[in-house]
């Protein structure tokens, strides 16, 4: 890029989105067969000026990011109806649009809005769904994501996962001045909020099944400890600080137990802790590295990484203990698993010929598929609807986040403007 073009680009970037956004999203691999849709800029009602958030732009960006939709570019929007009576379906049919979204954002009080939208079937000239939502200023983005979820579900038959969050770790600086931050942001990277900052490493954030708490590993005392932190209030409690490793926390679906790795007996082993009594039950017993436990969504079994067979591979063990069963045989390095929400797939880091990529194992067919093409891809995490996997990779000598569709057909990059981003974890559907 020529240096003299930079100020213009910067200006465009500033105009394009609010300054508090930390992540930008770049689609790096498109998808054939995306549904053509027109998302018309929402109109305003009442006395207020323009709405403080561009709701239609948020919806359009969500749909585009899913890889399942191809929103019409803004300059192709030949008219801008905000009311169903103004819609001329014939025009949109000629633009090969299957569906369209119209709506209004009305200011109904101080910092209070009413958002209404309608999803229209252009081919059949009729409304598919329509809702209206009250929203405070602070809730407008969430309402927009919720509308995206409703549209996604109506048109694909699958639940959307836009109104969810991601947690991740960033590092900045180097040497003694290095800082580590644990953040929670919307699934599109907006509204990042720091929930913990430290000058010692932070690792392995894990959401509780209800989305209210995050477990993580901190080295703030120059030794590994596991804390559980309430996301909304920031209060936290220490649950593990045994000698050696206190690592890889994973919540049981019931929220009452935590699987974790401890090396208090001189070797990394998988344990299950009852969070009420703090009682520990040891699940593994081998001289190998046993770590990275992850609960099956039905709570009956735990998948973990072990090098007991000579190289790191994934194994499954009953949650109450028993004989582990090896699951991966493809390649010399399969580690860091995440279960798909339906319990039928495992995402993992797959190492082959010096490259570490994200692969998915289908547990029914035992077929393994490599989804990414980086060399340092790690920390895969499924979206709560199972359609996408977010992971950490390297670009331009920095740690960045990427997401790939579970079928491998669509890929996008979410890049932070400064520092390294690592260990993304997608939240469950939130019930708080």
């Amino acid at each position, binding site marked *: 890029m020529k240096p003299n073009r930079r100020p213009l680009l910067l200006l465009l970037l500033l105009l394009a989105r609010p300054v508090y956004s930390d992540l930008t999203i770049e689609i790096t691999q498109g998808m054939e067969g995306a549904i053509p849709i027109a998302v018309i800029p929402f109109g305003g009602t009442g006395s207020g000026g323009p709405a403080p958030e561009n709701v239609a732009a948020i919806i359009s960006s969500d749909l585009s990011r899913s890889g399942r939709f191809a929103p019409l570019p803004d300059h192709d929007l030949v008219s801008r109806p905000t009311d169903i009576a103004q819609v001329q379906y014939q025009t949109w049919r000629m633009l090969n649009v299957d569906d369209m979204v119209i709506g209004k954002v009305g200011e109904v009080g101080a910092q209070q809005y009413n958002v209404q939208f309608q999803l229209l079937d252009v081919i059949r000239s009729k409304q598919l769904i329509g809702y209206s939502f009250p929203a405070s200023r602070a809730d407008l983005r969430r309402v927009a994501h919720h509308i995206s979820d409703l549209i996604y579900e109506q048109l694909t038959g699958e639940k959307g996962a836009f109104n969810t969050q991601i947690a991740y770790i960033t590092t900045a600086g*180097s040497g003694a001045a*290095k800082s580590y931050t644990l953040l929670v942001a919307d699934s599109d990277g907006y509204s990042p909020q720091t929930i913990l900052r430290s000058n010692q*490493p932070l*690792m*392995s954030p894990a959401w509780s099944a209800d989305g209210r708490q995050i477990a993580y590993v901190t*080295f703030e005392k*120059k*030794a*590994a400890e596991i804390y559980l932190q309430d996301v909304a209030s920031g209060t936290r409690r220490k649950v593990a600080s045994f*000698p*050696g*490793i206190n*690592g*890889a926390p994973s919540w049981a679906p019931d929220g009452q137990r935590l699987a974790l*790795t401890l*090396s208090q007996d*001189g*070797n*990394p082993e998988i344990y299950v802790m009852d969070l009420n009594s703090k009682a520990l039950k040891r699940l593994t017993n081998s001289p190998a*590295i*046993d*770590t*990275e436990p992850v609960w099956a969504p039905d709570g009956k079994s735990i998948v973990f*990484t072990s090098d007991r067979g000579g*190289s*790191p591979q994934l194994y499954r063990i009953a949650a109450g203990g028993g004989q582990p069963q090896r699951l991966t045989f493809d390649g010399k*390095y399969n*580690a*860091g698993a995440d279960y798909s929400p339906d319990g039928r797939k495992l995402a993992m*880091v797959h*190492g082959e010929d010096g490259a*570490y990529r994200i692969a998915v194992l289908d547990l029914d067919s035992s077929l393994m598929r490599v989804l990414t093409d980086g*060399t*340092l891809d*790690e*920390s895969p995490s499924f979206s709560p609807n199972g359609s996408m996997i977010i992971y950490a990779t*390297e670009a331009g*000598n920095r740690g960045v986040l990427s997401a790939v569709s579970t079928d491998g057909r669509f890929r996008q990059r979410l890049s932070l403007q400064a520092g390294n981003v*690592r*260990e993304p974890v997608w939240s469950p559907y939130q019930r708080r």
Partner: protein
Amino acid sequence: MKPQMNSFIALVLIAMLAGCSTAAKKGGGAAVEDRSMGGGVETSGAAGTGSYAGASLTDPSSPLSRRVIYFEYDSDSILAEDQELITAHAGYLSAHPEQMVTLEGHADERGSPEYNIGLGDRRAQGVKRAFELQGVAAQQISVVSYGEEKAAADGHSEAAYRLNRRVEIVYVGY
């Protein structure tokens, strides 16, 4: 902020003074009054107690000045060239049973972060066992694995990775 800065400066001064002293004595040296105790009690140290710990640890020509052991990829085997180093540290630690040491295990950045914690732990545990075989008491040694979280060298080359697969021997108090 200010008080922290002052104590930081004080720490730096102490560290500099300790560095200047040719024989920093443990539990000995100049009397330090502790005026924080109630009842008019004052405590102070007496010269001549404790052992001389400083000299060999701070001597740059001593093998003890080398505090890092490097490892091959996905391996926790101590290389033949490091046996002498292990023996020197083990000898020092068994002669100074009051000296505590932390073994910090590290891995290169490739692969899964928590598996790398496991690798770093195994390397540090390997050094711990080697120390114990040479007479160091288990309670003198603590182990912490940082996995790939605290790289000694940045970059994605084998040269950087080699510097990052390591165990650092950290003498507590030095």
